[in-house]
């Protein structure tokens, strides 16, 4: 079976696809062969130095910020070409992207809301694959209620002083900077009174502690601010306008990357199917049926993404992002369960001390998909209210 992405997004041009494919093959078959398939979910801390080098290579060849406007140093590529890049990247087994947050979240935010000065200062480091950023939105106990921010930033002259705690910040221990939603108006509640601040991590007022996860590994961190400082010039947008700044680009995270992400899903599905054929699980009617249903839904996700691409001509709308997120998160979680069920009794044991198989990792990690980045429950609220127009509860 081939995914055959080559013909489904014809607008990108076959020549472009072949160029991407050729370059990836050369790099990942040669100098960077050691990073192939590294850094996936549950393995975010693999081969870190090499993957930083890989990001710099991507940057120096112009593959970062492919769709950003040329006047800001981007590639100015069409949406179709961005999709092609993501698809080919996934198909080639490109490593998990360390620059994900920097390129997909911060970059678009600065492009949309940053000052000229901020763009000049921060975009080049991202485009070069040099500067790693991490995200500081989530707080302990807030769950899906992103607006219940308790981290405070108090203005002192030309600086903000931060106190509080962020959680689930991936790569914080590697990153240079963090972009933070903080409460600058102490009397405010919820969405109002928040500001969007860029904060350097290498300073005394910042402490980073890894979180050990159910897999036994630690890809995420808690970040504690206790008198951490950043220049007032590092605020993106107006004071108190942070919620709007943050939300306006949250959907970007899930736009063009979707089709590439699905190539990854397809690889996971194919692995489960191969395993089922090899170990006899395919002969079980129930497991076979679940595999067929998973295949059907994977195809449907692809059709949905292609339709969205066709109709939007740009990034997915917030609503489409919600539909897509709910769709893939549920699918992926079910695939995780299916994969261990296909593995059967083999899934009962791990390699010592606690090294999980791919199926086990998928089983455990995919459970985060329905929680982070807007839980299933939040997505269902959005769909019910914004697509269907049902009244608020």
């Amino acid at each position, binding site marked *: *079976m*081939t*995914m*055959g992405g080559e*013909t*489904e997004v*014809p607008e990108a041009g076959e020549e472009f696809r072949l160029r991407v494919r050729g370059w990836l093959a050369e790099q990942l078959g040669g100098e960077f062969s050691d990073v192939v398939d590294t850094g996936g979910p549950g393995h975010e801390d693999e081969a870190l130095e090499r993957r930083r080098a890989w990001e710099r290579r991507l940057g120096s060849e112009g593959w970062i910020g492919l769709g950003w406007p040329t006047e800001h140093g981007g590639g100015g590529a069409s949406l179709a070409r961005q999709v092609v890049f993501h698809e080919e990247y996934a198909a080639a087994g490109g490593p998990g992207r360390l620059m994900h947050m920097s390129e997909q979240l911060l970059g678009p935010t600065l492009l949309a809301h940053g000052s000229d000065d901020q763009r000049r200062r921060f975009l080049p480091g991202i485009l070069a694959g040099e500067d790693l950023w991490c995200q500081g939105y989530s707080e302990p106990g807030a769950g899906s209620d992103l607006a219940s921010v308790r981290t405070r930033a108090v203005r002192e002259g030309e600086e903000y002083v931060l106190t509080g705690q962020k959680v689930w910040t991936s790569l914080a221990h590697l990153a240079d900077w963090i972009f933070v939603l903080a409460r600058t108006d102490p009397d405010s509640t919820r969405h109002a009174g928040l500001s969007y601040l860029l904060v350097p991590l290498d300073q005394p007022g910042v402490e980073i502690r890894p979180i050990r996860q159910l897999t036994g590994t630690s890809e995420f961190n808690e970040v504690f601010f206790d008198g951490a400082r950043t220049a007032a010039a590092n605020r993106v947008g107006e004071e108190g306008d942070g919620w709007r700044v943050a939300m306006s680009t949250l959907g970007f995270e899930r736009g063009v990357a979707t089709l590439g992400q699905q190539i990854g899903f397809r690889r996971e599905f194919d692995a489960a*199917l191969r395993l089922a*054929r090899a170990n006899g699980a*395919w002969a079980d009617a129930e497991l*076979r*049926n679940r*595999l*067929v*249903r998973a*295949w*059907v*839904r994977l*195809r*449907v*996700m692809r*059709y*949905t993404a*292609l*339709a969205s691409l066709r109709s939007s001509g740009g990034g997915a709308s917030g609503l489409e992002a919600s*539909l897509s997120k*709910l*769709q893939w998160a549920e699918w992926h979680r079910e695939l995780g369960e299916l994969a261990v069920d296909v593995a059967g009794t083999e899934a009962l044991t791990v390699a010592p001390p606690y090294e999980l198989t791919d199926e086990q990792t998928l089983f455990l990690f995919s459970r985060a998909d329905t929680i982070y980045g807007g839980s299933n*429950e939040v*997505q*269902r*609220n959005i*769909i*019910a*209210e914004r*697509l*269907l*127009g*049902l*009244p*608020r*509860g």
Partner: protein
Amino acid sequence: MSDDVEDEVREEMRSTVAAFLDARSGAQGRRSEMAQPHGFDRALHDRAWDELGLGALPVPESLGGLGLGFREVATVVEEFGRRLTPSPLPGTLVTAVLVAERVARGGCAAGEEVLERMARQPLVLAAAGVTPGAGECLAGAGGALSGRLGAVPFGAVADGFLVVAGTGDAASVHFVPGDAPGVERTERAALDHTRRLADIAFADVPATPLSPPDDGGALAARLRALVRVSLAAESVAAARTCLDMTVEHLTLRRQFGRPLGSFQALKHRCADLALAVHGARAAVDYAVRFAASAPHPGEVDELGDGVGSVAALAKSMAADTFMDVAAEALQLHGGVGFTYEHDLHLYLKRAKSAQLLAGSGPALRRELADRLADA
């Protein structure tokens, strides 16, 4: 024509058909149509030719038609499906698409004749033998057909049949005039009030074979795929109507002092349905485009069987979604949806009929499993 221009043409066609159907006074029209002899409105059928020229749609220009293809036919099918309009027209158009495709390959006088006629005057065509488990029919040495096929939509009034004889690689497609000697039709009352069915018995019926010799069942497979995609298209449209009715009900109706639609448990279930409809919509669009281009260069022949697996996927997904939506609609409407006067039961029954016709969900998933095992 570029894709965008085609889209505009189809959009115009859609609104024309929609206006035509809505002008017959909507749901009330449907109730009276259901009750007419053979369960549809013959006058409406005739007007589809006289006023809209729908019969000419899939007929090649050389035979006096418009020379349009399956995408345009699917557009019409959806509008009929969206309203549960009881009509043999969708089946007629889909069947004609296959005839037109066959005619385009040459040497098919019978097909040319029927298409030429269809461009000029109202006609009913029906596909028989596309629902596994509903009888069987075999082609004898001289090409004559014998057997019995059930579950043929509006088969009692068909002027011509496309009959699938045999199965698998040996399946072949035959054209049989509705009044051919040896054809006996028995109209059956259907669970689904909006789609009357018929059993057709063939007793040594002379028939015109349309499948080229040794095509390995390809033409029959294509007919089956077109019928499936057509059922998928009408299902997703009807599911959408049904979901809209439910949302409207939940918005207007109050219980315990609040609009029903503000209860989060109901909202979340509706959101799940909306997502399913959204996915089915995309699957149907993909399948229609794929089927129209046989295969369209922009689409992927995933399991190497042409449109077959895409059609099976889209049909199972869309019909199941339709059933889920109709069932939930009934639940969320409460008692009123249980009355004969309310339209919801028509949707529920139509959904079940869409599931069971031309291959049930379990049967289609079995087909897909077999293909996936070989892929």
